């Protein structure tokens, strides 16, 4: 089984889907001749041609709008938003049109579309290239939100997203594009949307994370394991619709829950998980449900020391696990 990076797995998924279904096409800024700013689509323009790997103007509302229109005609668009920070011009298209089209047409006009967007900080990108936007979109019935944390999942989840009849926002942890490596089978496989995964078994504390923070959380769990703390790690993978059963089963098992995300704390996605656990697993809790998240400041700072202050890392996560285990 070949080992590949996160971004290679994403490229492989798109390559396989383009080859499998002639209705699949890619549209986005610099996705064609340049192969994407992160090289996610590298080689696909040459392989599938300008009609299926389309360079768009710098207009995110139009990228998503084109995708919606094409999807309504039976196409399977993969729209790329260069950075999640720039998805906001397309907010209206995504929330008001893509997410609601199927519902308001009584199920007649589904929008089978994927919007890929790299998100997250820690790459020295400053405020326009570091945002986490999952909380803004994980509030919208009709729109699925998926965040992979490793190459294997990325390929399987992206292929499922392409085939899903609903619009799917596929957020990719850009810091992990080349940092996170893993074995990816060359064979055809998919991973169903809406299923979380217990990525590490443990008994003392349940830690919920996704994307880059899941990668860090596994390292933190390894670190505290040597101190005798057995953290169970749950990779949420799909944020909407979320897998409540897996989340609750783990919380009931350990009695202690920590949710980790780099997005700001207040109104962040962790609040939903915390509320779910407090609601349905209250009598099994042995400690308050804790969140470890980015601070409530407007953006990830550009300055490196300040970026480090903003960002979570395995040490900060390990400290939070220790504290909760000790409670």
């Amino acid at each position, binding site marked *: 089984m070949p080992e590949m990076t996160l971004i290679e797995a994403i490229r492989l998924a798109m390559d396989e889907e383009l080859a499998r279904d002639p209705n699949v096409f890619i549209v986005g800024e610099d996705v064609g001749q340049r192969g994407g700013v992160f090289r996610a689509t590298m080689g696909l323009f040459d392989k599938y041609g300008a009609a299926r790997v389309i360079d768009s103007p710098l207009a995110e509302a139009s990228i998503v709008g084109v995708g919606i229109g094409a999807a309504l005609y039976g196409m399977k668009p993969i729209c790329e938003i260069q950075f999640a920070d720039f998805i906001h011009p397309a907010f209206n298209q995504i929330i008001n049109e893509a997410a609601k089209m199927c519902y308001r047409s009584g199920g007649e006009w589904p929008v089978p579309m994927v919007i890929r967007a790299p998100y997250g900080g820690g790459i020295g990108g400053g405020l326009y290239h570091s945002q986490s936007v999952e909380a803004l979109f994980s509030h919208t019935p009709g729109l699925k939100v998926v965040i992979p944390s490793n190459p294997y999942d990325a390929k399987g989840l992206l292929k499922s997203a392409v085939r899903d009849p609903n619009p799917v926002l596929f957020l990719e942890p850009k810091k992990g594009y080349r940092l996170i490596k893993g074995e990816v089978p060359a064979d055809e496989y998919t991973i169903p949307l809406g299923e979380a995964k217990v990525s590490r078994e443990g008994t003392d504390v349940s830690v919920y994370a996704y994307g880059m923070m899941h990668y860090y959380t596994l390292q933190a769990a390894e670190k505290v394991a040597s101190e005798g703390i057995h953290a169970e790690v749950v990779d949420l993978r799909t944020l909407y619709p979320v897998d409540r059963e897996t989340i609750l089963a783990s919380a009931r098992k350990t*009695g202690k829950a920590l949710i980790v995300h780099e997005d700001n704390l207040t109104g962040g996605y962790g609040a939903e998980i915390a509320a779910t656990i407090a609601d349905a697993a*209250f*009598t*099994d*809790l*042995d*400690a308050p449900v804790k969140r470890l998240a980015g601070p409530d400041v407007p953006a990830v700072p550009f300055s490196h020391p300040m970026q480090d202050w903003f960002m979570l890392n395995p040490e900060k996560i390990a400290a939070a696990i220790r504290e909760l285990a*000790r*409670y």
Partner: protein
Amino acid sequence: MATQIIMPQLGESIVEGTVVKWLKSKGETIANLEPLLEVETDKVVSEIPSPAEGVLLEIIVPEGTTVKIGTVVAWVGAVGEPIPAGGEVPDTGSTTHKEQQPAAVATTPTLPAPQRELGFISPVVAKITQEHAVDLRQVKGTGTGGRITKKDVLAYLDSRTSQVESPKATIPIWETPADGDLFRPTELVFAKQVALSPVNVTPANVTRDTGTHDTLLPHTTIRKHIADHMLMSKNVAPHVTTVMEADLSKVVAHRTANKAAFERDGANLTYTVYFVAAAVAALKTHPRANSSWSDEGLIVHSAINIGMATSLGEEGLIVPVIKGADGLSLLGIARAVNELAERARGHKLQPEEVKGGTFTITNHGVANSLFATPIINQPQCAILGVGAIQKRVVVIDDSIAIRPMVYLSLSFDHRILDGASADWFLAKVVEVLQNWS
């Protein structure tokens, strides 16, 4: 919510600690786990960290003061935060603030916590506690501030299950040596008599030859005390047992007529109540039966305190004492009997309640025994054994009648009473019972 700082238990057997020095003054900010005070126990000084961050709201125990463990010594919380009820309330001078406090708080002095603070009980700990009937005071907390965690209570349950066959981890109060006449270490109470006794008290050591199919059951504390006490009593007091029988027709009639009325008053009118009352009446007329032997002379007790032997099954027996039984009405005796019996079987007797008996009654009749030769509960003079109440054929005025009869066995110390005086006493008991009205 302000956090209370309690005097920690710094060792297994440590019961109190002295506040040597406050490292923070009132109003000073303190970080979590920052040293807050120094505590001295047995000449060892320990630094106690704060379990919370905030400001030191109030110092309750001043330097140089020794308090029991579990006593609230200070409060830590946010600036201006009120101290919860039970703690000392800082006088803020604000009337609205005062109105929010229950009136009682200001006048209630801070009392040392009667037992270890359990701290916060999490939902899952509460659930497990309820499901498995756990007494959380038995569980050692290892969480923050000594909080009992889920792991702690599960570990406790594990140990509890594995201990089913072994003696209880905590010794019930009546098994505590030096408390209670019956179970007091005999060498302490009767050292002199035992030493002077012509009979060597050293028990013949039976060879501990346990065959392959035999089991060696280790003695429990209560069993050892019973053994010592019985052996000692037999050695120091020449026992004689005399037996009489009593016709309980009038007692049965009285009980039948009054049982319901007693029940309305919350008392269960048992036969034991009548035997206690009859013994009290006989002791009043024969005070020498209410006495203890000493080399200097006979100690005749002014109080009549009736011990009531209560079986705890295979575990052993315990003798709670009805204090001042001569001052109680039948209802009062009934209540005392009920309550002591219930507490004895629930293992809830206080040390005081098994002390100071002057005469003992043992109701072996509950196990259908007709008469027995009970062993005197030292240092008393006599013990009355009550047999089973049976309808028997008796001859009254040359005619045959069926009457509820009971054999009463009195074992007495022949140093104090002779056969005739003991029989007078027992005859009085019989007379009271037979003429009950």
